[in-house]
């Protein structure tokens, strides 16, 4: 469960070390033997890499490969998989109404995030980038939900949206809108909407922070120049701010989509995918099969499909959307990566 959230939060710092290890050695001008020095450098590099590599291979790569292997078996999780099922798990998967529903709900979440959450975060970021009394307080307040753990958020909102007794219904009742109070998470038709509300509350602050950082790196001179040229507020936003913020936007879209594909903890804590599968996500279905029904082979097939979707999306997004950003950053290493 934590793996999902921790990846998204440690995502950015990781990048700095990108392809770093194979840096050319600094020019050696004192020479007790260049070769020896090279060897030393090489050994140092290997020495530093080994612990990380061992962990990565043991805890990420091997389990991944094993899941891929297990996905082709009917396997209950005990001993080694032996009952080969061919592509049976995958054909079953794409005939399973719940899984097809998962894909649909995933799409809905992605679209809602892109259409509602990110524009909202952007609007807040632009607003909080103005000179404004107590803006540090606002920034902190809006960012606070992101710091809260998913489990706590889940428990909190199950209480807020408890029918009749919850805060939401009380507030609606107090302002004379009692009729709007509903079953929230308990109603199959509204559960996704309520869930999205929680997701938005939880994550918009994170995107807002990204945008704020992006906004602050836009030189004030450009905006001033546009002002002198007679550009109105909208034109300044549209023609100066937005283009210069584009790299940040692209990253935030990426994180948002990956997050939606892998959504698990909040859903599990609040609804367990219910009522009647109406808020189930791929990760929840995988958990149900892997950890409740002991159909680990089938669960592995789900995780492989999830992985495939993430991978295809990540590659396509990088190829078609992020290319400009990457080229700017890696012009000196052209031959190495695309």
């Amino acid at each position, binding site marked *: *469960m934590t*793996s*999902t959230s921790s*990846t*998204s939060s440690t*995502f*950015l710092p*990781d*990048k*700095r070390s*990108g*392809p770093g290890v194979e840096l050319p050695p600094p020019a050696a001008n004192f020479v007790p033997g260049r070769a020896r020095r090279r060897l030393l450098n090489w050994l140092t590099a290997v020495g530093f890499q080994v612990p990380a590599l061992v962990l*990565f291979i043991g805890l*990420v790569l091997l*389990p*991944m490969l*094993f*899941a891929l292997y297990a996905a082709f078996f009917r396997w209950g*999780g*005990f001993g080694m998989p032996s009952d080969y099922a061919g592509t049976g798990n995958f054909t079953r998967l794409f005939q399973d109404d719940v899984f097809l529903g998962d894909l649909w709900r995933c799409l809905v979440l992605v679209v809602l995030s892109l259409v509602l959450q990110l524009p909202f975060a952007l609007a807040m970021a632009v607003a909080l980038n103005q000179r404004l009394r107590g803006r540090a307080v606002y920034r902190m307040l809006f960012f606070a939900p992101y710091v809260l753990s998913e489990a706590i958020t889940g428990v909190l909102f*199950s*209480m807020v949206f408890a*029918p*009749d007794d919850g805060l939401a219904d009380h507030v609606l009742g107090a302002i004379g809108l009692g009729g709007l109070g509903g*079953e*929230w*998470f*308990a*109603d*199959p038709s509204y559960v996704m909407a309520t869930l999205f509300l929680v997701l938005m509350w939880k994550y918009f602050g994170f995107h807002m922070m990204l945008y704020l950082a992006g906004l602050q*790196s836009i030189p004030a001179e450009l905006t001033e120049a546009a002002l002198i040229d007679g550009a109105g507020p909208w034109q300044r936003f549209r023609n100066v701010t937005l283009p210069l913020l584009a*790299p*940040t936007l*692209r990253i935030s879209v990426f994180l948002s989509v*990956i997050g939606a594909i892998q959504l698990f903890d909040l859903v599990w804590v609040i*609804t*367990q995918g*219910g*009522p*009647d*599968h109406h808020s189930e996500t791929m*990760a929840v279905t*995988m*958990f149900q099969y*892997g950890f*409740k*029904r*002991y159909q*680990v082979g089938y669960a*592995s097939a789900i*995780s492989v499909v999830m*992985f495939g979707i*993430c*991978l295809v999306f990540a*590659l396509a997004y*990088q190829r078609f959307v992020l290319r400009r*950003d990457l080229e700017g*950053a*890696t012009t000196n290493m052209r031959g190495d*990566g695309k």
Partner: protein
Amino acid sequence: MGDRALSRRGFLAASAAAGLGMTALSGCGGDSDGGSSDGTTTIEWWNISTTEPAKTVWAGLAKKFEAQNPKVKIKIVQLENDAYKSKMTALTASGKLPDIFHTWGGGVLKQQVDAGLVEDLSDKTKPWADALLPVAKKPYILDDKPYAIPFDIGMVGFWYNKALFKQAGISTPPTTWNGFLDAVRKLKAKGITPLALAGKEKWPGMYYWAYLSMRTAGIDALQKASDDKDFTAPGFVQAGQHLKDLVQLQPFQKGFLGAAYSTPTGEAATVGNGKAAMELMGQWAPSVQADAGKGLGKNLGFFPFPAVEGGKGAITEVFGGGGGHALRKGAPQAAVDFLKFFASRSTDMELVKKTGTLPVVQGAESALSDPNPEAVQAQLKAATGFQLFLDQAYAPAVGQEVNDSVAALIAGSKSPEQVTQSITKTAKEEQ
């Protein structure tokens, strides 16, 4: 901005780690062999007593055992019901279970036994285990060998609010299904929510279908269906139809599809706070009602699941299960000693008195003082048949499918026929 140093490798690692990270979770689990240099043994005891007063009483018993056995330390791990099941699934897959762990017996225990992870208690618990109530030991006997020692036995039935029944003009609890539906109508007519249900957790809904199946198709049919992997007999469809009749009366509390069982807004609290008149629940219901809500005290009553007109089952056949403790294969002797201590008469009397469990040690009945546990105990003693909880009796996938498709029936998305077909399909997939 962070994107300056983005690399493909980073993207892949991030997507991969998150996508498949779940698999790695199954690897975590305790592995203490217990023995340490100064001769003390530490045994891990995993249980699901997370609600008061059981939580404190059990911790006190562990302390008492430690005092009697200075060389033994007990490490208690308490997990909530569903979390416990998930965690145990992961541990079972990893091949190492806690020294002493809670079990309900049936299909799940059998899987753990088949995997070679559970200690056979035949010889280790002689002769003291013979003094335990036979019906309580039944769920843990697989292939004639006992694999766990019970500390509780019980059954599911309707727990009702006498005051609300009176208010609706229901003088005696119903004994037939039609009578029950009438009672529901009467309660509704008075503006009282007849039933509380934890729809989110699915297993409480399964109780209705299971009991109705026992009443219409009969206990033998449930056993046969499990053996033949065929649940499509007319009796099961009728059971679903009866449940559908009930659901169509809209008897459950508002938002029941999203309600949990033991949370402050859950099923138990709804009944415990007098907001619904009944719940179909096991013998632990009174203590959870009082823990999650206010509790009903003297207003709480118990009646067995009504008989269904024309059905094969009798009202005296009970559906339930208990709780027991199993040992991992190779657990230290201290763990066996603890089981013996926990199954002693004095421990059982304390459990009965303080935590509302039903006596499993002969002679401990004297500790019963409340009329409700007495009523349950009387039902159990007079039982003409016993069916273990379906999600425990069957293989996990089948049990979960029963829960899942009955939940769908209650939510209105599956017909009674489709329920039996889904369960059959899952049963056939499991070899």
